């Protein structure tokens, strides 16, 4: 499989998953604020973005398996950078919350932190490797 085919297949999963994630998140927030839903219904609604997240990561896993070995090293490094960023922010902020009464950081933000740091690392590493 060529890189172009793998990339196309990746975006075919990633874009609908991201749309599902955002729509599911916004719908859950709206329902929690405006509707008097029982807790199990809210849990059910919150399952939509969770499912979308799983699809996103499954698509990424497949993408990493389908691209060639050099591009795979770039992706793995970028994912590691994303995970490290999440761990540093979560543990660092958690320490501040525990020891210094810092305001609470919702763990909801860990996924956006992951995608932002992963994307930045993937962009820099790909550019260094000779562009897209």
């Amino acid at each position, binding site marked *: 499989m060529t890189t172009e085919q793998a990339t196309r297949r990746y975006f075919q999963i990633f874009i609908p998953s991201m749309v599902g994630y955002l729509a599911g998140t916004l719908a859950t927030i709206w329902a929690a604020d405006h509707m008097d839903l029982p807790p199990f219904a809210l849990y059910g609604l919150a399952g939509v973005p969770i499912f979308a997240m799983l699809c996103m990561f499954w698509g990424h896993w497949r993408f990493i398996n389908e691209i060639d070995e050099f591009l795979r090293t770039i992706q793995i490094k970028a994912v590691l950078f994303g995970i490290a960023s999440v761990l540093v922010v979560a543990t660092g902020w958690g320490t501040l919350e525990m020891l210094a009464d810092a305001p609470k950081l919702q763990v909801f933000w860990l996924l956006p932190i992951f995608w932002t740091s992963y994307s930045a690392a993937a962009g820099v590493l*790909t550019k260094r*490797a000779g562009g897209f």
Partner: protein
Amino acid sequence: MKNRLKALRAERNWSQAVLGAKLDVSRQTINAIEAGRYDPSLPLAFKIARLFGQAIEDIFDDEARVMQGARRRE
């Protein structure tokens, strides 16, 4: 790892994209191997050697072999 990939490719007038297509890898991968920023896996090295009809060690040269050659010349 030093290699002769760029020279071999130039002899055949192939672009990095063309060589990448023949080896089923991306242009970036060819670029990284030629620049010595990435050492290919053994299966890819074999594929490259087969494509150019040469032995792996005639295309790729590790530092140890370079040093050995220099010592022999001394």
